[in-house]
Structures are given as structure tokens and as C-alpha cells.
């Protein structure tokens, strides 16, 4: 019977009424690598943030080294010997490796910090971990992989560190760097340290993990020994929820519908050689896990971020999109997942927001034509059934669903042909969701075309005519709706090519 290092029992966590973790229990043995997997929003990060003291649990208990503990801050967790290595690394880029490792407890000689000593200590530490890094170089001159190793070394410089939590440690690494990291993890395991390993890359689990725990929708599903955890089995556990929508059975787009948008070999930040076509009247779903590069792809197409290379064609003609202004004038609109930050001016009225993108069309040389603005706003408020007492209502007073509709109205008034919806139903209640779905159907029925990014696979299955799946910046699969299933999508979404 292996020694148990940590047990989290019946953990509960609520965020503003949302039940983020519902009675989750997990047990970690000493000297094991324990993988934690699940879709976006499954609760992995929340659970680990509770363990590392960033969040406080609302219920349940944590038993660590045989004692019940309360962990109220990351510092407290570290003192106990629990350290989390975040994806966005917590280093001070302008300081040297040794300075980073010993920050806050640097060796001193009188009132001066003893850099000679700390460099020497860092060198010994790095050597003992077989990490080939000069402790005197600044961290921002190192590759991400090396920076990660510095952070691991920093964690291990605390004598009693016995549990490391790694959040997607391989996401930004090359194959060679991954093997180095794995070797290091195996060394740590051999020394009796435990590692909780969060990853979307299911295929790497057999190489590194001893056991796998699957979470789904904030609930504990099961823990498997790695020998029993086939890829298929994990995927079916990750997505094995009941589908609460009827999926679309077949595409509503005729075979010969014209291609309205074509992207060829797009390369941008976290976008690697992406090509796809969008047909007129189509809803093209984009599936993928966090960091798959879907939003980055759309932002590059929309001109919001620079694209390194690639071509965009509209109705068969090549177009140059260098800024959102260009995209809008070509009839493309982008509806960001963060409506409040990027889509609407919530301190202004419905009317003002509705014509925000097309104000020039409603103005004479000097003045805005208030009557025309009011007319067009009323027309679209009615058409999209935006529930607002008046077009002079401030947008902040509208519900999330109605705000979303208003963003659509804004782009319809601007005469957009292509609507890119980025997580259109995030943070919206069920009733409002179905209104958004109706609205999207209304748009395609009028001949508009839609790209829909969503992390909810059932929603994609309900809405899309075709689904493109991305993983780590690449398109890893494309499925016609008639052949798409949750399992197939998840399989592509975790396929690291």
C-alpha cells in the first residue's frame, strides 16, 4: 500500500453562485505523477488553485501528510511544501536566475546581499537537478523551457517541497525540451516527490503519469491506473455527459453554396498554417481546448493582431486586411467573448451603441441625424427582439443576452456579411442562450455566414454545419456535422501533431 501524501475530500467551490467544484475528492500518493485531465471549465485549475492557496474552498477538507490543513495563501502552501508552477511563469524577468531562486531569502553578508554565495548555491542546486543553466544570466534571456526549469528549481530550493503542481507544463515546449522535462519529473519522482500534472495532451500521459484523474463539469469522474487509461476511455470520461441539445443531423448548406471566405496558410502568434473555407449561409464551428489558437486565428483574420504570413480571399478575390477597419469595410465583424471590454460601450445608450460602427452613414458633414439613428435602431431592436424599455436605455442595464443581440444589431446595421462569434453564450443563462441560437439561425437564413468559436461541444453540435477542430495553433480535424460526435471532436482537440 503506497503512502498517501495528500487527500482532498469533498471539496466544494462556488463562484458568484456557479457551482465550480461539486464534492470533488482526489488522493495523491508519495512519489507519484498524478495526471489531472478534463475539458475547459471542468474544474482542474480551480481545484489546484485551492490546493496552492490562491482560492479558498467553500467546503470539504484537505489532509496533507496525515494532518488536516487550511491553506490560505500561496506562501503558506509553499512553506508546507506545495508549489504550483503556473503556465504564465511567476519569475522576475529582469533578474538573474540565482536572484530569482533566492528572492526574499537571499544570503547576506552584513547589510549586503551575497551574490557570490547565492550564485554558488544556485549552481549547486541546478547541477543537482541536471539543469544546464548559468545562474548569473538574466531570466528574460532564457527560453520558456529553461524559465520553467528555473521555476521548478526555485520550488525545489525549499527543502521540504514534496508536491509540485504543474499546469500544462509542455504547452510551450518543443519535443526535445519535453523529453528533458519528463526526465526531470522522473528524477523527482524517484526522490519521492509527488507531482500533479495538468495536461490536455493525452498522448503524453502514458510516458509520464502513474495515475489519471478525470474531472468533468466540476465533478469527480474517476481515477484510473495509467495501464488501464486508454486514450479512448479518457476521452469518453471527459465528454461523457448527457447531451442537453439535439445535435443538428445534417448540414443546411447546399454543396454548391459559394465560398465567401477562404483563409490559406495563415501564420500568426499561436496560429500555425491554418487554412479553411466558409460558405455562404454556413455556420462553421471552431472547437478546441484552451490555447488551441482559435481566438488568435480570428483576431488575425480580423486584422486585430498582425499576421506573419497567409492569404485571405473573399468571394474568390484576394483581400488585404491590415486592421479591423479593413475587415469591417469588407463586411467582416468580430464579436468578442468579452462583450463589455471589446463589444459595447456599456455607459452609453442602446441607440448610440447600435450605430457605433456606422455613425458616418447617419451623419451629415457636421451633425448626426438623430431621427435616422432612432429609426434604424428601433427597426433592429424590433427585428432582433432586443428587450429594452427604450432605445435611450443605458446598455449596462440590459441582460447579457440582450447585450449580445445589440452587438449583432450593430454589425447588421453596418451591413456585415460574415459574423465571427467568439464564445457567444459564455456567461449567459439558458433562456438567453436559446435566443442567441435563434438569432444565429435567423442570420444564416438571411444569407449571412457565421464562424462560431465555442468551448461547449454540445452547443457546436447543435449549431454548426461543419466543425473545424484546432489544437495548439493547428487545425487537426474537420468534420461534417453528420459525422461529428463529442468523442471525435475531443480526440482531434487533444491531438498534438
Amino acid at each position, binding site marked *: 500500500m503506497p503512502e498517501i501524501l495528500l487527500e482532498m475530500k469533498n471539496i466544494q467551490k462556488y463562484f458568484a453562485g456557479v457551482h465550480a467544484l461539486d464534492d470533488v475528492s482526489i488522493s495523491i500518493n508519495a512519489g507519484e505523477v498524478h495526471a489531472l485531465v478534463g475539458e475547459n471549465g471542468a474544474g482542474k485549475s480551480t481545484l489546484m488553485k485551492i490546493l496552492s492557496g490562491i482560492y479558498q474552498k467553500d467546503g470539504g477538507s484537505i489532509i496533507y501528510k496525515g494532518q488536516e490543513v487550511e491553506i490560505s495563501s500561496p506562501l503558506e502552501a509553499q512553506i508546507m511544501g506545495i508549489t504550483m508552477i503556473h503556465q504564465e511563469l511567476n519569475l522576475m524577468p529582469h533578474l538573474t536566475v540565482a536572484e530569482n531562486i533566492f528572492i526574499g531569502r537571499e544570503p*547576506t553578508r552584513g547589510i549586503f546581499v551575497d551574490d557570490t554565495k547565492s550564485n554558488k548555491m544556485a549552481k549547486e542546486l541546478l547541477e543537482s537537478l541536471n539543469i544546464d543553466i548559468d545562474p548569473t544570466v538574466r531570466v528574460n534571456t532564457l527560453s520558456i523551457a529553461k524559465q520553467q526549469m528555473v521555476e521548478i528549481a526555485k520550488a525545489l530550493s525549499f527543502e521540504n517541497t514534496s508536491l509540485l503542481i504543474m499546469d500544462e507544463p509542455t504547452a510551450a515546449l518543443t519535443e526535445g525540451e519535453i523529453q528533458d522535462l519528463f526526465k526531470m519529473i522522473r528524477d523527482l519522482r524517484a526522490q519521492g516527490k509527488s507531482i500533479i500534472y495538468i495536461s490536455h495532451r493525452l498522448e503524453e500521459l502514458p510516458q509520464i503519469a502513474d495515475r489519471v484523474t478525470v474531472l468533468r463539469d466540476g465533478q469527480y469522474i474517476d481515477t484510473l491506473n495509467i495501464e488501464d487509461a486508454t486514450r479512448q476511455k479518457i476521452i469518453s470520461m471527459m465528454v461523457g455527459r448527457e447531451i442537453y441539445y439535439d445535435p443538428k443531423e445534417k448540414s443546411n448548406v447546399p454543396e454548391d453554396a459559394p465560398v465567401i471566405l477562404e483563409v490559406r496558410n495563415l501564420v500568426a502568434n499561436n496560429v500555425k498554417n491554418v487554412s479553411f473555407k466558409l460558405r455562404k449561409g454556413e455556420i462553421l464551428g471552431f472547437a478546441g481546448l484552451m490555447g488551441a489558437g482559435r481566438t488568435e486565428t480570428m483576431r488575425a483574420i480580423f486584422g486585430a493582431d498582425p499576421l506573419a504570413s497567409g492569404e485571405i480571399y473573399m468571394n474568390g478575390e484576394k483581400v488585404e486586411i491590415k486592421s479591423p477597419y479593413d475587415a469591417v469595410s469588407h463586411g467582416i465583424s468580430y464579436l468578442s467573448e468579452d462583450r463589455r471590454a471589446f463589444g459595447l460601450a456599456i455607459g452609453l445608450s442602446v441607440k448610440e451603441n447600435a450605430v457605433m460602427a456606422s455613425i458616418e452613414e447617419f451623419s451629415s458633414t457636421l451633425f448626426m441625424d438623430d431621427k435616422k439613428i432612432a429609426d434604424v435602431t428601433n427597426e433592429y431592436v424590433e427585428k432582433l427582439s432586443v428587450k429594452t424599455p427604450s432605445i435611450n436605455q443605458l446598455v449596462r442595464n440590459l441582460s447579457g443576452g440582450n447585450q449580445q443581440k445589440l452587438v449583432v444589431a450593430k454589425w447588421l446595421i453596418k451591413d456585415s456579411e460574415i459574423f465571427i462569434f467568439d464564445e457567444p453564450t459564455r456567461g449567459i443563462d439558458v433562456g438567453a442562450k436559446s435566443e442567441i441560437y435563434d438569432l444565429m439561425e435567423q442570420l444564416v437564413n438571411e444569407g449571412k455566414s457565421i464562424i462560431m468559436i465555442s468551448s461547449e461541444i454540445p452547443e457546436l453540435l447543435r449549431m454548426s454545419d461543419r466543425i473545424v477542430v484546432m489544437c495548439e495553433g493547428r487545425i487537426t480535424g474537420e468534420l461534417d456535422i453528420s459525422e461529428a460526435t463529442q468523442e471525435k471532436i475531443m480526440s482531434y482537440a487533444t491531438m498534438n501533431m
Partner: protein
Amino acid sequence: MKPNNFSKSMGFQKILALGVLALLYIFFAIFGNNFFSWTYLVNILDASYFIGFMAIGVTFVIITGGIDLSLGTTMMCGALLGGAAYNIWGWGIAESLILVVVVATIIGIINGLLIAYLKLPPFIATLGTQMVGMGFGAIVTKVMTMRYPTVGTPDGFFKNIFYKTSTGFPVGAVWLAVAFIIASIVLNKTKFGRYTFAIGSNREAARLSGIKVQRWQALVYTLCGFFAGLAGIFYAAVYTSIIPSTGNGLEVLAIAGVVIGGTSMTGGVGSISGTIIGVFIMSILKQGLMSMGLQAHWQTFFTGIVVIGAVLLDNYRIAQAQKVKIKAD
């Protein structure tokens, strides 16, 4: 990115600044009236004292990613209160000079509390204390100009200590050099300096490493106030008369000097040695324009341009560094 590119780019900035320093000097030597002379060299030194002390303090602040716009009026407020103590309240010169530093340090503490503990943005907090300091100095002195003792009067010896010896040796330069050396050691060799960089580089990471970020940040602004007080003593020693309701705008000379010297407005990067070069660029500019017969408003005009140029250069540097980084990834 090669391991030493970063330090190389830091070095490049300093070499560039030294080049500018030399060019400016040559420019004014050619076009200025009698600029290439011992007198003007001393004038340049004279102007560098108060700019230099302010710049040392604000270097720490800027490395944390902050700013102190109250520097100029803090210095003046201290000098005015010291002057009031000497002229009106009949204090001795030594006590009056100590008061200069105490007053400025208190303003520094207030900045620190507002920024580190009450979470005001540094820009706003110090803009506020800039006005408060300027107003307070004028209120206490009843808007009368405060005069410090001149050489020859019984208390005039303080000028011999901080400004010029009786033989005419610019002793202020020695004090400034000592301050630069001490500040450089503090910045590079003590925990205080280390945490100054850490906060500016990644505040959250510093906090998660167990550093009492608020306390150190408040201390940085306090130090800045302290140096503004020292600047006040040297300003009084060199210029004798302190006029109420002045001083705003002088901080810009110091901040520009710091940024020209390679300290980044976004924090995490900076050096005292760079600041020295920047300070002399600013004082050469100030005196050089004067030698061309261009008065205060011209100095203001050019200082503004230099500030914009320095910050543009800083932006460019950051963009370049990021470019290299993306390539490396």
C-alpha cells in the same frame, strides 16, 4: 536570444547617452557664447547638483515601474520651510537644513502610503502631492521669497560645505559623486535594491515569493523624498533665493535624465551610472541654452522635446527587446 544580448543593449544605451553628452557639449562649445570655459563647466556642475540628487531618488521609483511628479515642488517645499525656519523662526542654519530634508522625506512617506497602501496610481498620487507641496510652501512663507545666508555672512559657511570651498573648488560635485556611489551600492548590493528591481520586473511574482511588496514600495518613495530634500539643500546652497510657488517642472529635468540614462519607464531595468550621464545631459542642455542667450522658456520648450524623445526611445527599446524574444521562442 544570446545570453548577453540584454546586457549588451543596456550597455549600448549608456554608450549612446555618452555620445549624446559629448555631442551636446561640442554643439554648445561651437554655438554657445563662451560655453567652452571653466566658468561654464562650473555652471554645469552647479545645475547638476539638484537635478542629480532628485534623479538618484527617482531612479529607484522608476525602476519599480512608478513615477514621482512631486519631486520638484517637494524639493522647493523643503527648501522654503527650511528658509522659513532660518529667516522667520530664527532657527540655526544646521537645524534649518535638517528641516529641509525632514519635510521632503515626509512628503515622500505620504507618496509611499498613497501609492503602496491606498493603491493610488503613482501618476495621480504624486500629481496631487505636487500641488500640495507647492501650496504648503507658499502658505508657510506667506508667499515671501526665502533667502539663505550668503558667503561672508556668519552662517554663509554652509555654502563652503555644499557648494564651493573658500578657494572656489566646486565641492558639491564631491557630494554628488559620493551620493551616486552610495546609491549605486544600495541599488545593486542590498536587499532593498534587489526588491526594487523585483517589484518593477514582476510585482505579483515578488509578492508570491514572500516579499512585503507594499512596505518596500513605500520605502522607495520615502527614499525619493529624502533625496529631494538633499536636492533642496544643494539648490539653496547654489541659488540662495527660494521663490514660493515654483518648482513644478523641475522634476521633469530629473525624470528625463533618468530615462535618457537607460532606466525603463515600464520598470525592472535601470542603473545609477546611466542616471549620472542623463543628469549631465540635462544640465548641459540647461546651461548650454542659456549660453546661447535662450532664456527659461526656451529651456522649458527643449526639455519637453527631450522628454518625449527619451520616452520614445524607451518604447523603441522595449519593442526591440520583445521582437528578439519572439524570434527566440
